[in-house]
């Protein structure tokens, strides 16, 4: 199982994502200027402040050569995980529906949050083993999920809402407490909290985040993309 973790100028958590992925399989960094995804079975678009969040978070990163390859990869059914800034990049690239806006209170907040698993049978959640609630750190100032009402209704109807903030844990104002969504085909998934920071009991407060990487490996091994 080989993960490719993108790296943009200004990425912060790409090394954390790399190390989390390495607990589950092989993983390499892919520099934003590279088109070659190195034969990765799954791509992780990590957190940070790619291009300084200039203009809009993720707006510039989505046009990098690596992202162009990722868009093709996703269209072919490859697994793509977007974390925090990565989620923003995937929305800007229109691989995921909706948009991320500044937190309602306009502040950066770092907090360990509880997430309800709404869709337990996706390539990103299938190895949760009965876990219905995840404890994962979130840290961002630009994480309010937005889509118009009809889109939100569609997402819910089609099971594309994968994770919701548990009641009282939504600090950014995301509509319908949405913390993570997938595309219609189910092979692209983005979330604002950081599962790569919840893979080790000593530093993560929990190991719940590891289950997301494990799910991806399971999906690849079973040949289930889309």
């Amino acid at each position, binding site marked *: 199982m080989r993960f490719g973790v993108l790296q943009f100028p200004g990425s912060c958590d790409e090394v954390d994502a790399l190390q989390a992925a390495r607990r589950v399989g092989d993983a390499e960094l892919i520099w934003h200027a590279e088109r070659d995804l190195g034969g990765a079975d799954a791509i992780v678009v990590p957190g940070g402040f790619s291009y300084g969040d200039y203009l809009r978070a993720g707006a510039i990163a989505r046009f990098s050569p690596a992202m162009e390859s990722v868009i093709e990869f996703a269209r072919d059914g490859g697994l793509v995980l977007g974390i925090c800034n990565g989620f923003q990049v995937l929305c800007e690239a229109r691989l995921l529906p909706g948009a991320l806006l500044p937190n309602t209170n*306009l502040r950066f907040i770092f907090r360990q949050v509880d997430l309800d698993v709404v869709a337990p049978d996706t390539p990103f959640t299938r190895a949760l083993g009965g876990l219905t609630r995840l404890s994962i750190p979130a840290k961002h100032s630009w994480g309010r999920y937005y889509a118009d009402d009809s889109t939100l209704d569609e997402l819910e109807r089609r099971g594309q809402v994968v994770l919701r903030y548990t009641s009282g844990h939504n600090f950014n104002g995301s509509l319908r407490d949405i913390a993570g969504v997938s595309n219609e085909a189910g092979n692209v998934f983005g979330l604002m909290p950081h599962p790569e920071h919840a893979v080790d009991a000593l530093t993560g407060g929990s190991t719940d985040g590891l289950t997301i990487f494990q799910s991806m490996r399971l999906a690849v091994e079973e040949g289930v993309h889309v």
Partner: protein
Amino acid sequence: MSEGAADPRSGTPRSSPPEARVSDNATPPTVEDALALGLTRAEYELVREHQGGRAPNQVELAMYSLLWSEHCAYKHSKKLLRTLPTEGEHVVMGPGENAGAVDVGDGLVCAFKVESHNHPSAVEPFQGAATGVGGILRDIFAIGARPIAVLDSLRFGEPSSSRSRYLLDGAVSGIAHYGNSIGVPTVGGEVYFEAPYEQNCLINAMALGLAPRERLVRSAAAGPGNVVILFGASTGRDGIGGASVLASAELGDDDSDKRPTVQVGDPFEESKLLECSLELLEAGLLVSLQDLGAAGLTSSASEMASAGRVGIDIDVSLVPLRESDMEPFEIMVSESQERMLCVVEPARVPDVLALCERFEIHGTAIGAVTDTLRMRVFDGPELVGDMPVSALVDDCPLYDLAPARSATPVYAPAPATLALDASARACLLALLASPNVASRRPLFEHYDAIVQSRTVRRPEQADAAVLAIHHPGEEVRAAGDGVDADDGPAIPALAVSIDCNGRRVAADPYRGTIAAVLECASNLACVGAEPLGTTNNLNFGNPEKPHVAWQLTESVRGLGDACRALDAPIVGGNVSLYNETSSGPIYPTPVIGMVGRLPDARNAGRLGFARAGDTVALVGPFAPSLHASELSKLRGHPLPDELPEIDVAGVRSAQFAVRGAMRVGGLSSAHDIAEGGLATALAECCLAGGLGVDVWLDSFVCDDGDGDEDDPFRTFFGEGPGGFLVSGISTGVRALGRRTHVRVIGTVCSDALSIRLGDISLSATLVELAEAHGALAELFPC
């Protein structure tokens, strides 16, 4: 290329023509200009002597005035600082470099330092604090270490002041913006609110980094003929402000925005600069490296030359500029951020420039190392400044202080907010809600404390931050699929704390400073760490005033004695003086930062109670006093004339005992008793653990207990170094008695705090404690 300067492209020194004339830059500056720049008449005359009897020109005067400023030259503090202990078995790099460093095992060193950015932050708190973080991070990677953590130490006036709230909000946002964006976690810190800081806020930032020992680099320039390369952001007019008296052109009123005093930071640029610098060092391409901080190119180039006992030629026409029409003195004095200076052998110059380009940052050869022992500034072919390096850097006059204790109180007491007859319970809730004690969560939630995946103890989880030295993932991969094996190899870690109670130092500069150092080490002990080294930022008022000179002298004496007693030498630090206005000086505030090591992060201590039924004990010297305590502040009492004597040896033994017990997993929790005393510490342990506690005290719990004579409030709320609150299974707790005084005082229970002493009892539910403790939330409105 200029006539006299060494050629930066090839490094070939050219012989300078005899009598290279320094251009006059139109009308030469006057003595009045020198005074406006902060030099004294006597200093100006000394400058003239160093310049061979002639008046310094524009460039020269600008450079001397900066390098001879208090900030750069430590005129009033250097002699005192020389008395501090700086050597120790773990010290790899001591004071004098960009940062200090200690050996942490496995071939690695930890670089660390604290610095202040007080004055700029009072002008613009967001950028002042942000660039303060940027600057201290550069100091860390300038010696070759990768920054792994930041801590902040802040002081403002009381939160009732809207200006103080504004400064707090700006500073926290600025620190968050810079640290979060560059991907370095902010893992700890402290903030105090006291009236003496109202006009002079304090923004101190500490950073630590890790490096393989071989990658450590010094700043001394070396090798006449070597090339000086400037890399990073382009140069603009940031920070020039005060030097604008030297401008050749007349400035109209609408030109004031051309000479900003505020430096603006770009963490995105610094992130690239960091990677580029470390890559340059890894590739062995650099002879030396220095960051540009206060006084920009002036201090950077001069200090590199001085350290290496060489000369340096700089051609300002080669410096990449952000603004047009910058004069040579402006280029030399600019404090534009995110820039570094390095010395490179001529043959390696193309590699260095290519690497800079790969990281998308400017890299430009702007000068050369010479053997002239002079700092020469060229503007193309024209020599515009020529000064002896030693005069600039080493021969600034140093001043003796004339310390004299003030006969009358210097600081007014805070207005009383708590009645003298308030009940113990009311006092506890008031203390928990007071700005110096309440939870800092509304503040530290702005900080990413976990990026880089090293953080084992986050803010409010323990008395010190704990960071794994190696990424935990590296250990675990060997163990197998996502397993965090308890029987796996030990995970060595660093612990770090930053502390100072300025009010206690104001009461007694000698003992108050010792207390600050002890507290820092006690915080480390609570997580199981042993101190390796210390850094300090001395924030004081005007040293030319006798009582401030007395504060500074006594404080440094205490700092030295405490560091010697704890074997925690000073590896570097910073001094910030003149923090005062017509309403008086700040509290003397020697901020102490300490780094320690613990052998296994899996046993890192926590401050919260862990289990109902655990035994709770008070450990170590405990001679609490209400003098200079938080309670006495709330009651409106003035500062005492001195603090009680400290049993340093006793505190040291207690630290040893707690540390040792924590390392073997013998305790569930440990917390140092500080502001608010024993009752407050108990409440904090309850809140952190989500559990209650049942405590019975008698007044003999105090080492100097008087029995019936005692004021129970002294026992509950008195302060003083040395006391620890620990919890755990009974045998584990009592085992500490081999090394230090242990008094079992109660048991952890489920949901309420209850403390009894004779007839007096106080109790509160967790909900009530939490509500009081959350008082700072209103300072950060949404």
